[in-house]
């Protein structure tokens, strides 16, 4: 049963309702703008809700108002409903894309809250994972919200190692050692002796003890690179090694470094192991700055 008796009457009323709603919207938004107590964010929200309600009311009168709409046979109604639904689905499919991607990320499980990751050139700690987006706090202390569909299409680098069987020291060591440590790619090899080897082993055992105490079977292995000039490189290596000794107290473990490339400069990669990803956010930039001072000061 239609709201109005004839189509002409319905048309007139729908036009009047349309104009009325438009004017009402303008008056309300004008009035809200004049009230200084309301903050802009709330003004925007109220305007949005009122507009949405107006559109729904207008569509309701449009569908239910015309008597000829109710006279359409049931099979045509189904076809029209189906066609409109399909069109709407095509138009809004992008909105659903984030939800679907969210489910897929949940299945893939490439990271967890607190993990240190690099997604789309944004390096940082994951603060929140929702069904539509992932929130990262970067090293510049900026909050980056990445949509799930973007994450699904991009490469995800996870610096966090999920440790298994942490009770066993040798298994723990195998999991956290980098290929460079296994291959002994240390840069002060000429000064390396049995005493230093023992010291290194003790450092690893101390880290293992810390992991056991924390009962959190997660460790963050962050890497970054710096360029060193060839001149007096060996002296700079020694100074950097001393600096790493200093940062051992901060990061739980002495940062390690190795050469991974060279052209006009020597490219050195640093690897920091820590139990707390916030320590990286707080001190990695200071560490990089101190290394830069060593590079420049000779």
């Amino acid at each position, binding site marked *: 049963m239609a709201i109005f008796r004839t189509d002409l009457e319905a048309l007139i009323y729908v036009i009047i309702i349309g104009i009325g709603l438009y004017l009402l919207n303008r008056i309300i938004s004008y009035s809200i703008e004049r009230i200084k107590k309301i903050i802009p964010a709330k003004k925007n929200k109220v305007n949005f809700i009122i507009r949405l309600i107006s559109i729904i009311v207008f569509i309701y009168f449009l569908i239910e108002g015309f008597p000829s709409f109710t006279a359409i046979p049931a099979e045509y109604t189904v076809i029209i*409903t189906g066609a409109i639904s399909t069109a709407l*689905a095509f138009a809004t499919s992008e909105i659903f894309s984030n939800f*679907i991607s969210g489910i897929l990320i949940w299945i893939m499980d490439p990271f967890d809250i607190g993990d240190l990751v690099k997604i789309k050139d944004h390096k940082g700690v994951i603060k929140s994972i929702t069904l539509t987006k992932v929130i990262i706090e970067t090293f510049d202390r900026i909050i980056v919200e990445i949509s799930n569909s973007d994450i699904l299409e991009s490469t995800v680098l996870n610096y966090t190692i999920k440790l298994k069987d942490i009770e066993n020291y040798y298994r723990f060591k195998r999991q956290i050692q980098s290929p460079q440590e296994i291959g002994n790619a240390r840069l002060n090899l000429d000064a390396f002796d049995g005493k230093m080897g023992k010291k290194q082993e003790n450092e690893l055992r101390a880290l293992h003890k810390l992991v056991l105490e924390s009962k959190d079977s997660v460790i963050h292995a962050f*890497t970054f690179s710096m360029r060193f000039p*060839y001149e007096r490189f060996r002296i700079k290596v020694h100074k950097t090694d001393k600096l790493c000794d200093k940062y051992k107290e901060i990061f739980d473990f002495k940062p390690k470094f190795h050469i991974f*490339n060279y052209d006009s400069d020597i490219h050195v990669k640093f*690897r920091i192991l820590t139990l707390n990803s916030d320590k990286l956010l707080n001190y990695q930039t200071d560490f990089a700055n101190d290394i830069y001072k060593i590079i420049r000061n000779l």
Partner: protein
Amino acid sequence: MKKRYYILISIILVLVALWVFYFSGWEPIFINLILINVIAYLVRKPLFSLAAYVFKRRFYRAVISITVNAVWSVFLLWLIFVISAELFIALISFMIIAISLNFRNIINNIASGGLLLMSEQFDIGDLIETNNTQGIVKEINLNYMKIREFDGVDLVLPNSNVYSSTIIKFTHGKFKVFKPLEKEEFEKQKYYRRYLKTINKIIAAKIKTTKYVKQMDILGSVDPENFEEHLFKVFDKYEPIFGKRPDYSVDATSPGRVRINFYIISEKPQLVFNYIDAFLRDLVYELYSDEIFLGWEEYKQELLHNIDYEKKEGNS
């Protein structure tokens, strides 16, 4: 949602439910469905909080959240069906199309994963380069692939990205060449079937080799006369480690520098992975020893002197 909004909505819903139950006079099924939906909405949040408190793992929390929401959706759709069958059909067809349109990503990933696994382009443990990343393949799943980079960091790549991009295979199979059996040996074995078995074994013995190419720029300060001598010194050291002697070729020259391709060959990709940076270190220390160790001896003497001085100070 902010707590105060949640409380306000909850109060409104409870009032509506009470009115519907006592005063509406609607059909019982309609009333029951409204009540169920209101209860489901009110119970959801405390249930999620309880799950977050009990379960630390995100997986369990996600399972509970999805289950609760799925059950609530059933009742919500049922209520819509009772209100208007047309609206229900329109909503269902809309959701089916909207969701299925996005499932193409998942299906694409799964299909790419299947193709990668079936085509046996590479195996777990192979050294490859794809999407500008070099590393050892650790895991190939239906959805994604895990690669461990040279600095030991794991990288997760969607299968569709890997399948649709260029893949450089440093590890590849080759047939091991066996010497054919001598006539006497063949006669000794007597049986033809046994010989056939040996042939099969030869064909099936697919030996993999990793040939990693590292491109490096060498500066003009390196003396070209002694260049090969320096390289061979390092190659000699690493030949027993890799199992094969490393090699090199000149790729291109530009003013003040030459680009060299170093070939590191080994039957085990893990060896290349572990020792490549140590190899590079030895090369750079050998080629640029004058620049690198400039002032090092004096600096070392100074350090030793300081240590001695500190010791003396400590003793006194």
